[in-house]
């Protein structure tokens, strides 16, 4: 009996230790590092170091210079998402000279950005969020060939903007990590779409599993709370009813 109880308690503790370990591993949720390279007419997109797509755009469909930027869409996921979509570590590097054109680890503020649509919210830990479609650009319209690096936590739908001169002339990659699982590359010249390409896209396996595990752990904690709450109420009622019984017995005596 004692041995069985010991085994049971050890098993219980080990299981919950395992769940705690899962929480440690998954608490950041899903994080993807994106790198978009625009080099003359050659374009490449990498997700966590893996090439997603690489293609050339013919001369009359392409733009040759413009500002880089980012965009975020309204979160289309159901309300119980583990964490909101956030962008951080945004840098722009010249592909020819290797010079850092913009960004780094310093703080980001609203004044650095020219908003083309919507508004970015800057969190205390130097991250960009938004609750509606927002697009912003940085830098110089004369920039030509560059690599845009950005990290996205819990991605659903985001944009990487390149070679933007104004609202009618720009290139963009629209990355949809939730449901559709595609990336669409476009160029717009004078308001008309001159280039369109679509490619399959998904979070790396480890990141997807992380966010699912975080969801599991959170629900598990709620389950634990309900069970513990129930037992606490039970103990409370037990003590109370016992006290009342004793009191009544004493009175009848």
């Amino acid at each position, binding site marked *: 009996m004692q041995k*069985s109880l010991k*085994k*049971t*308690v050890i*098993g*219980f503790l*080990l*299981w919950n230790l395992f769940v705690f370990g899962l929480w440690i591993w998954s608490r950041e949720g899903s994080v993807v590092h994106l790198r978009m390279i625009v080099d003359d007419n050659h374009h490449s997109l990498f997700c966590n170091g893996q090439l997603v*797509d690489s293609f050339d755009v013919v001369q009359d469909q392409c733009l040759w210079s413009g500002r880089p930027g980012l965009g975020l869409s*309204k*979160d*289309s*996921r*159901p*309300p*119980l*998402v583990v964490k909101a979509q956030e962008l951080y570590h945004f840098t722009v590097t010249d592909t020819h000279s290797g010079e850092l054109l913009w960004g780094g680890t310093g703080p980001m503020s609203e004044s650095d950005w020219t908003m083309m649509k919507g508004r970015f919210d800057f969190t205390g830990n130097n991250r960009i969020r938004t609750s509606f479609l927002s697009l912003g650009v940085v830098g110089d319209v004369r920039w030509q060939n560059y690599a845009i690096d950005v990290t996205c936590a819990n991605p659903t739908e985001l944009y990487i903007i390149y070679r933007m001169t104004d609202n009618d002339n720009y290139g963009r990659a629209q990355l949809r*990590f*939730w*449901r*559709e*699982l*595609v990336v669409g590359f476009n160029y717009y010249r004078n308001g008309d779409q001159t280039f369109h390409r*679509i*490619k*399959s896209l*998904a*979070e*790396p*396996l480890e990141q*997807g*599993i992380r*966010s*699912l595990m975080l*969801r*599991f752990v*959170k*629900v*598990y904690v*709620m*389950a*634990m*709370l*309900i*069970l513990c709450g*129930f*037992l606490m*109420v*039970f*103990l409370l*009622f*037990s003590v*109370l*009813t*016992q006290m*009342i*019984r004793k009191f009544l017995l004493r009175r009848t005596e």
Partner: protein
Amino acid sequence: MNTLSFNHSRPPVSQSADLLVMMIIICMAVIAFVGTAIINNRYLERIPHVQDSVNYWFQAQLYGMGRTWIEAPENVEYFASEHIVVQNNRWYCHYPFLVPLLFMIGMKFGYIWLVNPLIAALSVLLIGRICVEHFSRQSAVWAAVFLVSSPFFLVMSASFMSHPLGLLLTAACIYAGLRQLKNPSTGNAILLGAAIGLLFNTRPLTSFAVSLPIISFHIRNRDRFNGKVLRHLFIMGFIALIGVGLFLLYSSHLSGKTLQFATHTAVNDVKGPTSIKIVNRFFNSFAAAGVGKTGHTPERGLGCTKALIELLHTFAMNWPGWLNFSFFLIPLIPWRRREEDLFLYWTFLSIPLWYSLYWRSAIMYGPRYIYEVMPMVVILSARGMDVCMDAAGWIHRNSPMRHWKTLTVARSATAICLWVFTGWLVYTDVDQYVISDYYDMKKFPVVSLVPMRLSAMNGFNGVRRSIQDQVEKWNVTDAVVFVEDRRWQGFGSVSSFNHPRMDTDVVYARDKGQAGYPLILKMFPGKKAYWIAYPRAQLHTLEYNPDTDQYVKTMLKEQ
């Protein structure tokens, strides 16, 4: 970790308690039937709203004629719905036969719209039965309540999809599986095999997903089979394979080629939309599927599964915040889990795992691909309440409190608290979804194809009865009505009013421009021509003007 084997006994309960539980479950089944019938009638307007449903309806009409396919009419593309195959001049729906067969029976009685509500009621009864037989009376009541209050269950059971039957048959597999694992017998093996075989003819991939845990638990519990586990598996597999054989025979009969999927062969010779070709790529070559021709990948599969699970998490119960699914995980906490619970968890996991083989999430009425996990969700959630009670009982027995004489009173009082709390959760769910007809859009923003509140079922997926209503309002008879063909939903809204024989008084056709009008009108000499806009449902007369050699539309206006 210790697990309690299948011969865990239920606590004895009086006959009157049994009767009360039975009455409550029957009440829940009646509520499920009436509720989903009302949703179908009032919100879905008794018409199919999704391409798949239109397909089942079409095939049911064919069965009603005593046919499985029909010669495609001339210019079939004017009458074709998405996914309905035209192959070697055969016109048919390539989906498995069981759902259209049931719809055909409903159609014969004039109550096709009550088929899925009836299946919903049977599902509630069966899930209640599973709990009564294998768990507890309390869990039976709560599982029925959880199921009937689930928005996902309500909206799906009101539809014309195959998933409600998939749920019922999955519950049947669980029922037979638990019986077999508890008391192995040839009868139970046959029942299990039949349930799997029928499920294969409803949702083939789901039947694989459900079979895997059943087989693995047979092997895990082989000691219970007195060395005859292989015999039992063979019987089960043999019966299930009869179902698979029926599927293949039916499929090859449709395609006209021996032992080939109708879907498989359709890819090479299909008129109509490209979506069917994409579906067929799934069967032809996994690597060829996927957007952008990059193929299906594990990452893509996980991405789809993640979206489905996230939606299920919110939509299956619709409880406040993180309380969703919390009862579901309680049986996973304690130190001594029951084999039945593990079997249900494994079956729950198996379904999304199998659907991660699919390259898209295909959300419609919610995360429909994994709808068949609902029996596991509600049973395990109800089991969560059992576990709370069991834990209290364990403390009672294994602490100095065991000598206290008031513990039964305390336990009952705590149980009432738990029931009130659970009742509040269920009430908030029903209130948000049905009673108040309110759902905070900030909480659940732009997930299209998930009816966020009951009223969102009206005109769901862009399909409306308003076109047919206009035709009836203007007393249009003996006519061809061309429907504006911007999206499939236009013709999809009325395709169920056509008949495969094309002999209805009013025939609907897709509007494909001026060239199409004489083509179609020549097929139906003497019929008048009309044109109707979609989605505004404005009816126009369509008359030929010899001067311009064009058909002219004139909108009908009330005097």
